């Protein structure tokens, strides 16, 4: 049986977590990198979501607009997740018990699953009914903006 408390304690007291928590400059830099990742990700969600919902560049094939954007969003996600994990490493148990953090992580999980299983194939030009394409765009955009808002709330109100 996995001892969760021991795992959390090990992560929180690790050298890297301790080093980050002890350095305001390092924390600030990671937070800044996290914000850049979020900007890439959420901005991409706006562009590709607006194409899928038929608002933006509708005279171009979906794959021409949303294809590369959806791939770029994964880069933004990787940057955000990596920097985010490092940021909360020293206070992981506190963060996990915070409702705003739980909401953010829940939305992040759902948004990532939707992105990988539905958003990317549809953005790559998979033949689907227009309603499915529209719904994919709207749901994806809503989820990623939700993650960003939840993240803001967690940082500002925790």
């Amino acid at each position, binding site marked *: 049986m996995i001892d969760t408390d021991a795992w959390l304690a090990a992560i929180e007291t690790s050298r890297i977590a301790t080093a980050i928590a002890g350095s*305001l*400059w390092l*924390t*600030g*830099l990671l*937070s*800044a*990198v996290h*914000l*850049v990742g*979020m*900007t*890439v990700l*959420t*901005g*991409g969600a*706006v*562009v590709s979501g*607006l194409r899928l919902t038929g608002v*933006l*560049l509708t*005279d*171009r*094939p979906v794959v*021409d*607009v949303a294809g*590369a*954007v959806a791939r*770029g969003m994964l880069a933004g996600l990787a940057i955000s997740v990596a920097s985010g994990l490092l940021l909360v490493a020293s206070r992981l148990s506190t963060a996990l018990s915070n409702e705003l953090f739980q909401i953010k992580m829940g939305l992040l999980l759902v948004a990532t699953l939707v992105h990988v299983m539905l958003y990317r194939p549809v953005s790559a030009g998979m033949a689907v009914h227009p309603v499915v394409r529209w719904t994919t765009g709207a749901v994806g955009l809503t989820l990623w*903006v939700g993650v*960003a*808002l939840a993240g*803001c*709330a967690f940082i*500002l*109100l925790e």
Partner: protein
Amino acid sequence: MFLQIAEWLEATAPGVLVRESLWAFPIVVGLHIIGLTLSIGVLMWFDLRLLGIAMRGCPVSRVYRRLMPFFASGFVVMFVTGGLLLSGFATAAYGNVYFRVKMAAIALAGVNALAYHGFTERRIADWDSAPRPPRAVRMAGLASLLLWTTAVLAGRMMSYTMF
């Protein structure tokens, strides 16, 4: 002189509200970050088109026309909320090196945009549909990406070093 302007800003009603209200500061910061997503988050995809990396099958002019209302709206939100935040903490910002870096990056990004629209874009008919635009166009896109990334990084560092 700038310090006196900063002190005056902090004494204005918006400055006092942002600094002393329990809810004004997080709301304004939240809107500033949403504006960031809409402005730089969308603009960067136009920059990537200029670089010939994204949306290569779409004419540059069309990408610009369709994205511009969104990133322009985002910049309006950013500048208004940024002005409000500055009014609340102007003296601390004045002495902060990351604030000066951020302002310099934003000013240079503006110069880059003016140069692109005033000079580089004049011959757009020659390269509008090219998947990989000419070097000068790509450089404008790269400069925009680097300068706005610098502004975002410096802006976030401000909040960790100002107080």
